[in-house]
């Protein structure tokens, strides 16, 4: 947690990413704020439709029509990325901020060798000569644990297994030395023994270079092993943010509590699991007050009319709830 004393590398402030569809305005991200220091790992968790991937895409400047950033700032290293034009953003993307996608099967171009795809990053973002680029590629593949890296430069993506492809994707993301890495469900498509290998690899890579990491996932267990702090999203809004250990030991928001309770491993014996009733509401027709109110066991009249503000907790962290759970003793 020493990282937090540094000036933030990234400050997202009141971010609103909306999609204007024929069915209505989809407020995928609706007023999200957080900051991130160099070398810090931030987990963004939530269920499908929570808007967590859209936060990542917004930072990367990858929001396409009918979506757009309606309001808010994304201050990266002193510059507001929202106001950059395409060319300026292109220089940031890949060089300063890199992204790892969920599906290693589709993230690589099947028509180019992995050597080509790695080297492209160096050609675009560095002044290295051909020989130096080649050496750097071999070095990088070895670093992510690809055996016989020199021979594998000429191989195509289909010649790799899923776990190995994700290693290649990590190598491509890290090779230009980005200062912020965004990983969107990086291990969801992989088996548990391979997932453990890759989480360790990612953690080693970012620690070694003091790269900041945003890990976006639905898997609270995996994120709790990686992140310094965790942001919980529900229907495009931050419902809780806090240091990982504190948030897991003593969540203040009923949704965070519900998510934690729903994990079967946290449950002793084989009685019924505590469950969150109902389903995530249609994001085009959110209830007027707190979006979680229809599913919340603590909801009262006030929750159905007034959207709770994110308020700082005395013990650190913040939550958006009118009737928060007791702080952990």
């Amino acid at each position, binding site marked *: 947690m020493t990282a937090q004393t540094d000036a933030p590398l990234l400050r997202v402030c009141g971010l609103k990413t909306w999609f204007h569809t024929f069915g209505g305005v989809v407020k995928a991200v609706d007023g999200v704020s957080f900051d991130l220091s160099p070398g810090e790992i931030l987990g963004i968790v939530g269920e499908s439709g929570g808007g967590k991937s859209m936060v990542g895409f917004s930072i990367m400047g990858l929001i396409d029509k009918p979506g757009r950033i309606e309001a808010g700032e994304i201050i990266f290293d002193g510059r507001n990325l929202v106001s950059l034009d395409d060319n300026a953003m292109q220089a940031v993307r890949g060089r300063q901020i890199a992204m790892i996608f969920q599906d290693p099967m589709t993230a690589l171009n099947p028509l180019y060798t992995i050597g080509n795809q790695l080297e492209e990053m160096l050609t675009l973002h560095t002044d290295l000569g051909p020989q130096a680029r080649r050496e750097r590629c071999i070095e990088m593949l070895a670093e992510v644990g690809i055996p016989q890296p020199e021979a594998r430069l000429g191989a195509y993506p289909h010649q790799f297994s899923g776990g190995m492809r994700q290693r290649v994707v990590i190598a491509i993301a890290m090779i230009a030395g980005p200062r912020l890495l965004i990983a969107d469900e990086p291990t969801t498509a992989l088996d*548990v023994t391979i997932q453990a290998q890759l989480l360790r690899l990612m953690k080693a890579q970012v620690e070694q270079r003091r790269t900041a990491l945003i890990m976006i996932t639905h898997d609270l267990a995996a994120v709790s*092993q990686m992140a310094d702090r965790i942001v919980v999203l529900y229907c495009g809004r931050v419902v809780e943010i806090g240091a990982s250990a504190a948030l897991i030991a003593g969540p203040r928001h009923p949704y965070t509590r519900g998510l934690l309770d729903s994990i079967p491993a946290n449950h002793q014996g084989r009685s019924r699991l505590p469950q969150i009733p109902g389903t995530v509401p249609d994001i085009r027709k959110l209830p007027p007050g707190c979006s979680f109110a229809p599913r919340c066991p603590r909801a009262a009249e006030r929750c159905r009319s007034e959207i709770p503000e994110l308020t700082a907790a005395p013990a650190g962290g913040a939550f958006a709830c009118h009737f928060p759970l007791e702080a952990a003793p």
Partner: protein
Amino acid sequence: MSEEPLLRVDGLEQRFDASGSLFDRLRFENGRISAPRRIVHAVNGVSLTIARGEVLGLVGESGCGKSSLAKTIIKLHEPTAGRIMLEGEDITGYGFQRMQPVRRKMQMIFQDPYASLNPRQQVSDIVVEPWREVAGGTSGDAHERAMQLLAKVGLGAEHAARYPHQFSGGQRQRIGIARALSVNPDLIIADEPVSALDVSIQAQILNLMLDLKDDFGFSYLFITHDLSVVRFISDRIGVMYLGFMVETGPRDAIFDNPRHPYTQALLKAAPRIGQPLPPAAEQLTGEVPSAFVLPQGCAFRTRCPLAHARCATERPALKHIGAGQSVACHLHEADETPLPAAALSAAA
């Protein structure tokens, strides 16, 4: 457990021919033309039993053959070898016609709630289709039956006339469960029924599946890759690797005292909430070998930290080691000579 189990599977094997057409197979090597076949060894001699009212959880990573095993048991694939006995009746060689009455006893719930429902059928028709096939009831009965089934899985009468696309993933899985229930089966094979669902919805469906089991008294063969789910729902657990059953036992024995090195590694690799990443030394290295060419000897030896000479030559059989737990590993055979010192120090 002295009575005849509901389901008994003996030495089941499933091999798929993935060679393609003759033209795909043709090879020209050393001046000779050959057309070798490529065989996937999906299930390799698996034996298991399920008692009435019992939940057998089957875990393993992708490609370990757990889905192939399930589909072979329910005869969506013809087994290559072995025997499948349901209530003492040998159904191994049954063709489509003779399977019809058997399907009344055995139903399946699929992983993907989007692909497993016919998009052009109303929900009330979907849920009674298996029942219509085996019982041939009238339409009046069918409607009433559909209403009962929907109520059982927590859906209302207003949902009956809708189509699958009007439902969320969790609701669709409820429809799939209602369909399996329609014939009052004795065994439900559930292939990753909650993997596609969000964690809050997953808890709802797991609770529903347990409630229904208590109501109806059927058994589950529950397939999942998620260790926390299998721990929650199972009475007994089987662990598969590369088409082999490597360990079986009561749930608590598997979790508290896993004996096979693969089970141990799998449990350690699973992310646990609030725990740090496991140390690298406890992690498995490498990846699962190809099911086209099985390793000689033990299938796990290429990744096993404790493998020794015997593992490369002799395939370990699943042997009972007490308290209902069985393991297929040379380290746990009673007549095994003490482990070579080199193997032990390599593991430490």
